[in-house]
C-alpha cells in the first residue's frame, strides 16, 4: 500500500506498511538523523549500510526518524528530529535517530552548509510529523467509530473522551492505509513542548564512549589504507618518481601516479582541482603506508599556466590558472597594486564622488586577512570500493549530491550504481563541501579493484587545502562639517575571490554609497569557510564603523542604531538584504545584556560588533583584559536573532563555539606561502586557540520571537573579529588592521 501526495514543489510524503507491521512514513527533502544509544538498548540494527530514508513507528511505539543531512557538529541529528517529534506528538524518549543514505529522490540534496539545515527543513519536517499524526488519528477514528475531531494525542498516545485510548504503535499498521492528508495544521510556537525545549545530543553517548562514528573509523574486511603524495607547492606538478625502494617496504601493495580528472574534464562549481596528478601509496596499514611514502624519490617541476574548463552559472568557460609560485609578501604587494586599479562596480547610490570631494573629513582605512586552513579535527579521509559495475563510497562530506555526478563521470559509471554513505564528520567548516578527496579515494580503489580508505595526514590536510581566500578591503567614509556621514565607499578584492557583499549594511543607510570589487586569479585553491566572505567583511567593516563613530563623537552602538533607523525609515537604494529592525534588535539586546552603558572597568575594555548573514543577526560585546602583557578576551556577551531556536542549549553551545573559533582565528589564524608552498603544516606552526585562551564566560542571549528559524552555524562567527579589533583599540590604544592580530602585535 502506498499513498503519495505532493506537499509542495520539492517534498512529498509516502506511507507504506512495514513488513513487520507499523507505519512507515518516508519523506523526501527531510532531515537527517542517526542511531542513538537507545537503538542498542532496543537491539535494533545499526550497521553502517543498513540505513534507509524513513520515519518508522513500530508496534511497540518506538519512533525512528532518519534525516538526510550529515552531522558535523551543528546538532542536526538532534534538532531536525525534534521538529518531526514535535508535530507527531511523541515522547522524545521513544525517538531513535538514524543517519540516512544518500538518496536524491527521497531525501533531496542533503547539503550541509550555508546555515541551512534547520531553515530548509523547518516546514517539511513538521509537515511530515503532523501528517503522520493525522493518519494515526484517522486510523483510531475508524477503529473506534468516533469522529476524528474528538481524538486527542499526547506523547504517542491517542485518546477519546469515551475512555478509549491506544498507543501510536497499535494504530500504526492501519494508519499506513489512510491516504496522506493534503493539508495539515501545524502547531503554533506557544504549543511547542519539544521544539524550543533543550534536548541532549542524540549521539552523545556514542561520542563519549568512543564508538566508530566518523569516516576515519570506517572499516570493512580486506580494506587497504591509501595515502596520496601531492606536489610540495601550488604551481608544481609531478615530473617523475621512483618507488622501487618504497615498494619493497613491508605491507605495501602498490604505488602509482593517477590523475584526478581526465583531460578536458568540465569541472562543476565544487570540483576543485588543486593538483591534477598525484602519487598514491597503498598498503595494509596506516603506519606502513606512512613509512613507505617517505622512501619514494620524486621529481617535481613547475606546472606553468594551466587551462581549466569550468561549468558555472554562466555556462561553460575556459580559465587559465596562472602557474606562478606565490609568496605571501608578493601576494600582499599584488593586492595593494590591484586595489589602486579600476574595479567592477557592484552598487552605487547617490553621487559618492561628489560627496567625497565636498567632505570636511575623509577617513580611509585598509584591512587585510590571510588564507585560513579549515583544520577540521578529523583530517580528510574517505572509503571507496569501486568495482567493474558499481561503487560504494563512504565518509565525511557535506554535499553528496554535488559529488555524485562527478563520481559518475570520473568512474564512468551510471549515477544509480554509485552508493554514497555519509558518516558523522569531525568538523567541516565548509571544507567538506569540496570532493577532491572523495574522487581521489574512488580513483585509487578503481585502479586496485579493492576497498580502500584514503587518509590525509595533518600535513596533507593543511598544505593541500581549500582555504579561506586572502582578502583585502579599503573603506572610505566622508563626513561633512557637522560630522554627519554623507558617503561610504568600499572597494575590496582577494586572491582569488573578492569578499564584498554590496547590499548589506551600511548600504541602505547612507545617501551616497559605492561598492567595488576586483579579483586576482591564483593556483591556490579556495572555498567556503564558516560564513564565507562575511567572516572577513564583519571584521573590516565593523572595525571601520567603530573608527567612524569615534570620528563623529558617537557611541558605537548608538551610531549603528542611528544608521539602522535611517535604513528602516527612509532606505537608500534597492535590494538591501537585511531587516533593519532585527539588526537593531540584536544591538539593543546586546547593549542591555552586556551592561554597555555602565562605566567601563579600568582594566577591562569593551568592543562591539554586529553583523547580518545567513538570514540571521548576531552581535558580540567582548571584554578584553591585559594578562602578562597580552590581550585576553575574558568575557563575551552575545546576542543573536535567528528566529525560533529549536534546541536552545545546543544553540548556545554552537554560539559559544563560534565565539571561541572567532577569537582563535582573529588572533592566530594564518596560512602563508613561500614559493607556492604552505608555510604551516601542522599544529606546531598553525596556531589554534586552546583551553587557556578561551574566555572565562560567553553569555549568550537569543532574541525571542516567532519568526521561522534562520541560520545559526555561521552568523555568530564573523562579528567576533570586529568586536575584538574594537576592544583591542581600547585596551592597547592602537587599531589593528591586519589579521591575525597576534602577528601584527609582534611586529609593532
Amino acid at each position, binding site marked *: 500500500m502506498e499513498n503519495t501526495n505532493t506537499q509542495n514543489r520539492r517534498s512529498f510524503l509516502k506511507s507504506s506498511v512495514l513488513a513487520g507491521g507499523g507505519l512507515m512514513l518516508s519523506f523526501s527533502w527531510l532531515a537527517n538523523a542517526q542511531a542513538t544509544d537507545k537503538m542498542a538498548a532496543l537491539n535494533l540494527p545499526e550497521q553502517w549500510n543498513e540505513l534507509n530514508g524513513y520515519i518508522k513507528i513500530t508496534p511497540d511505539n518506538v519512533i525512528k526518524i532518519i534525516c538526510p543531512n550529515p552531522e558535523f557538529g551543528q546538532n542536526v541529528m538532534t534538532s531536525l528530529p525534534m521538529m518531526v517529534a514535535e508535530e507527531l506528538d511523541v515522547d522524545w524518549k521513544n525517538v531513535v535517530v538514524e543517519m540516512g543514505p544518500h538518496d536524491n529522490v527521497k531525501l533531496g540534496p542533503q547539503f550541509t552548509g550555508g546555515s541551512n539545515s534547520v531553515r530548509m527543513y523547518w516546514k517539511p519536517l513538521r509537515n511530515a510529523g503532523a501528517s503522520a499524526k493525522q493518519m494515526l488519528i484517522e486510523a483510531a477514528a475508524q477503529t473506534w467509530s468516533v469522529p476524528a475531531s474528538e481524538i486527542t494525542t499526547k506523547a504517542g498516545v491517542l485518546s477519546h473522551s469515551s475512555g478509549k485510548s491506544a498507543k501510536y504503535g497499535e494504530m500504526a499498521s492501519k494508519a499506513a492505509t489512510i491516504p496522506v492528508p493534503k493539508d495539515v495544521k501545524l502547531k503554533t510556537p506557544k504549543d511547542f513542548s519539544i521544539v524550543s525545549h533543550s534536548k541532549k545530543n542524540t549521539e552523545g553517548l556514542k561520542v563519549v564512549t568512543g564508538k566508530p562514528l566518523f569516516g576515519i573509523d570506517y572499516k570493512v574486511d580486506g580494506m587497504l589504507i591509501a595515502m596520496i603524495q601531492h606536489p610540495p607547492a601550488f604551481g608544481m606538478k609531478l615530473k617523475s618518481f621512483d618507488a622501487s625502494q618504497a615498494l619493497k617496504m613491508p605491507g605495501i601493495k602498490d604505488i602509482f601516479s593517477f590523475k584526478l580528472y581526465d583531460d578536458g574534464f568540465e569541472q562543476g562549481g565544487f570540483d576543485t582541482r588543486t593538483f591534477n596528478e598525484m602519487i598514491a601509496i597503498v598498503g595494509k596499514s596506516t603506519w*606502513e603506508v606512512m613509512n613507505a611514502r617517505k622512501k619514494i624519490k620524486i621529481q617535481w617541476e613547475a606546472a606553468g599556466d594551466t587551462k581549466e574548463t569550468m561549468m558555472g552559472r554562466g555556462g561553460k568557460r575556459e580559465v587559465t590558472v596562472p602557474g606562478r609560485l606565490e609568496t605571501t609578501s608578493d601576494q600582499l604587494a599584488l593586492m595593494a597594486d590591484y586595489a589602486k586599479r579600476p574595479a567592477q562596480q557592484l552598487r552605487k547610490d547617490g553621487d559618492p564622488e561628489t560627496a567625497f570631494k565636498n567632505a570636511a573629513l575623509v577617513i580611509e582605512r585598509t584591512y587585510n586577512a590571510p588564507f585560513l586552513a579549515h583544520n577540521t579535527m578529523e583530517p580528510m579521509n574517505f572509503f571507496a570500493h569501486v568495482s567493474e559495475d558499481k561503487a560504494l563510497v563512504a565518509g565525511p562530506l557535506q554535499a553528496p549530491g554535488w559529488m555524485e555526478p562527478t563520481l559518475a563521470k570520473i568512474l564512468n559509471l551510471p549515477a544509480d550504481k554509485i552508493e554514497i554513505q555519509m558518516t558523522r564528520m569531525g568538523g567541516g567548516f565548509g571544507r567538506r563541501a569540496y570532493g577532491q578527496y572523495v574522487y581521489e579515494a574512488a580513483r585509487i580503489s578503481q585502479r586496485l579493484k579493492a576497498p580502500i580508505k584514503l587518509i590525509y595526514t595533518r600535513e596533507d590536510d593543511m598544505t593541500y587545502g581549500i582555504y579561506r581566500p586572502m582578502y583585502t578591503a579599503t573603506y572610505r567614509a566622508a563626513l561633512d562639517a557637522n560630522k554627519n556621514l554623507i558617503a561610504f565607499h568600499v572597494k575590496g578584492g582577494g586572491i582569488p575571490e573578492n569578499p564584498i557583499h554590496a547590499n548589506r549594511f551600511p548600504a541602505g543607510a547612507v545617501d551616497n554609497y559605492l561598492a567595488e570589487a576586483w579579483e586576482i586569479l591564483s593556483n591556490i585553491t579556495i572555498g567556503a569557510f564558516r560564513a564565507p566572505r562575511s567572516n572577513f567583511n564583519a571584521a573590516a567593516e565593523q572595525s571601520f564603523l567603530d573608527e567612524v563613530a569615534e570620528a563623529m563623537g558617537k557611541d558605537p552602538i548608538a551610531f549603528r542604531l542611528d544608521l539602522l533607523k535611517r535604513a528602516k525609515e527612509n532606505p537608500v537604494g534597492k535590494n538591501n538584504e537585511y531587516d533593519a529592525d532585527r539588526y537593531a534588535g540584536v544591538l539593543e539586546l546586546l547593549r542591555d545584556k552586556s551592561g554597555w552603558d555602565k562605566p567601563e572597568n579600568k582594566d577591562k575594555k569593551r568592543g562591539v560588533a554586529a553583523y547580518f548573514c545567513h538570514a540571521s543577526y548576531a552581535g558580540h560585546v567582548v571584554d578584553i583584559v591585559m594578562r602578562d602583557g597580552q590581550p585576553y578576551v575574558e568575557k563575551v556577551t552575545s546576542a543573536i536573532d535567528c528566529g525560533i531556536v529549536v534546541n536552545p542549549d545546543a544553540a548556545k553551545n554552537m554560539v559559544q563555539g563560534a565565539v571561541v*573559533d572567532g577569537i*582563535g582565528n582573529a588572533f592566530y589564524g594564518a596560512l602563508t606561502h613561500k614559493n607556492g608552498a604552505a608555510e604551516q603544516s601542522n599544529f606546531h606552526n598553525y596556531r589554534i586557540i586552546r*583551553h587557556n585562551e578561551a574566555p572565562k564566560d560567553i553569555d549568550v542571549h537569543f532574541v525571542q520571537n516567532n519568526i521561522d528559524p534562520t541560520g545559526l552555524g555561521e552568523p555568530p562567527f564573523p562579528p567576533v573579529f570586529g568586536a575584538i579589533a574594537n576592544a583591542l583599540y581600547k585596551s592597547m590604544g592602537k587599531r589593528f588592521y591586519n589579521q591575525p592580530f597576534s602577528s601584527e602585535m609582534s611586529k609593532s
Partner: protein
Amino acid sequence: MAKYSLKINGKTQLIDVDPSTPILWVLRDHLNMPGTKFGCGMAMCGACTVHLDGTAVRSCSLPVSAVGKQAITTIEGLSANGTHPVQKAWLEHDVAQCGYCQAGQIMSAAALLKDNPNPSDEDIDNYMSGNICRCGTYLRIKEAIKAAAKK
C-alpha cells in the same frame, strides 16, 4: 616486525607489528579500537590521548616498543558503558559538537582528576591546553570537569 603482548583495557592483546608503530595505529588498525583519534601525528592536538598506567599520553607519538608491561586504557576501556564520572558529566553538559576530539579530551580530563581531584580553573586550563577542540567547546569542557570533580 616484532611480537608484543600489550595490556589494553584489562585484556592482553598479542600483535605483530613494526616496533616503531605508534600505539594509535596499533589500536586503530590492528585491534579495531577506533575510539582513539588521529589528529596531528605529532602530539600537538591531544585527539589520540590514552592512559599509560593512569597517566595521559599521546598515543600517536608512543611507539609500541616503548610500552612494555605498562597498562593502556583507551576511551573504550574508561568504562563499559559511559558511566565514568567524566563521561557522565560530558553528557550532562552536552559538551560535544562534532565530537571528534572529545575522546581525547575525556581521557585527559580523567587523568587530571585522578591526580588532582579538585582542580582550579587554572589547573584545568594548564592541563587541558594540549587538547584542541576546533568546535570551541572549551567552556563546557571546563564545566564538565568541575562537575565530575564534585562526584
